[in-house]
């Protein structure tokens, strides 16, 4: 008697395992939180550069304006918007709103959509402001 091959969920990531928006967003919340914890130190570094004088500030602005710096800033700004919106979702749950299976999915899609939209708006203003200088 041959045994049928069965998928071993959830360790069988890929074609066997269907991701849910709930777990993916929860995971993203943590990842963006870690990114922002590093970003906090960059914000501090910016303040130190401003406090230290024009040369230090020019150096910081040079790094921030480089291609590499722009990628880092884009990543941090997306993380900030996503973590902020999903954090508001968490606060709503804490107040007792939207903590149903349907609410979790509806809120999840709203946060994902708004995060994409607001990040695009922020990048537009950020990059055009840099280009105008």
């Amino acid at each position, binding site marked *: 008697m041959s045994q049928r091959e069965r998928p071993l969920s959830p360790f069988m990531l890929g074609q066997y395992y269907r991701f849910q928006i709930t777990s993916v967003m929860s995971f993203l919340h943590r990842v963006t939180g870690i990114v922002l*914890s590093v970003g*906090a130190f960059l914000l*501090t570094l910016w*303040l*130190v550069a401003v406090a230290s004088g024009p040369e230090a*500030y020019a150096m910081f602005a040079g790094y921030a304006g480089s291609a590499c710096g722009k990628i880092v800033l884009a990543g941090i*700004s997306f993380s900030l918007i996503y973590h902020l919106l999903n954090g*508001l979702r968490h*606060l709503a749950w804490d107040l007792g709103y939207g903590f149903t299976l349907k609410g979790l999915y509806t809120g999840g899609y709203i946060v994902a959509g708004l995060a994409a939209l607001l990040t695009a708006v922020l990048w537009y203003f950020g990059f055009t402001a*840099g280009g105008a200088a």
Partner: protein
Amino acid sequence: MSATTKNLRDPLKRARGLGSAKHGTQHFILQRISAVIIAILTPWLLWLLVSLIPADYATVRATLAHPCNAVLLLSFLLALFWHSRLGVQVVIEDYVHHHGFGVIAQILVLFGCALGALVSFVAIGRIVFAG
């Protein structure tokens, strides 16, 4: 696990034997309070940062030296490092299973966040008072 076969005492009994940490819901509440402060100030900070992208050094410094901006910026950073520490603490608790590494990581995160907050405090002080 060998520990459970040697020790017949229920793990819950051992956990209870450690006693209450006397912190209760403090972590949860502080995380939410700092989150609300950050959530309120983030739109303002993003507007400030974007508006300062094309500005020259003197303008940036004068803007940050304004008492209103300095106080809000400092509030944001203190709440940010506080919130950051609380969040990373939970991530370490969940994913670092080696007790020693976990303790070292917690101490480093606490020191790092405290240092970040203090350095920000001093930097803003220099901008405001030496400007």
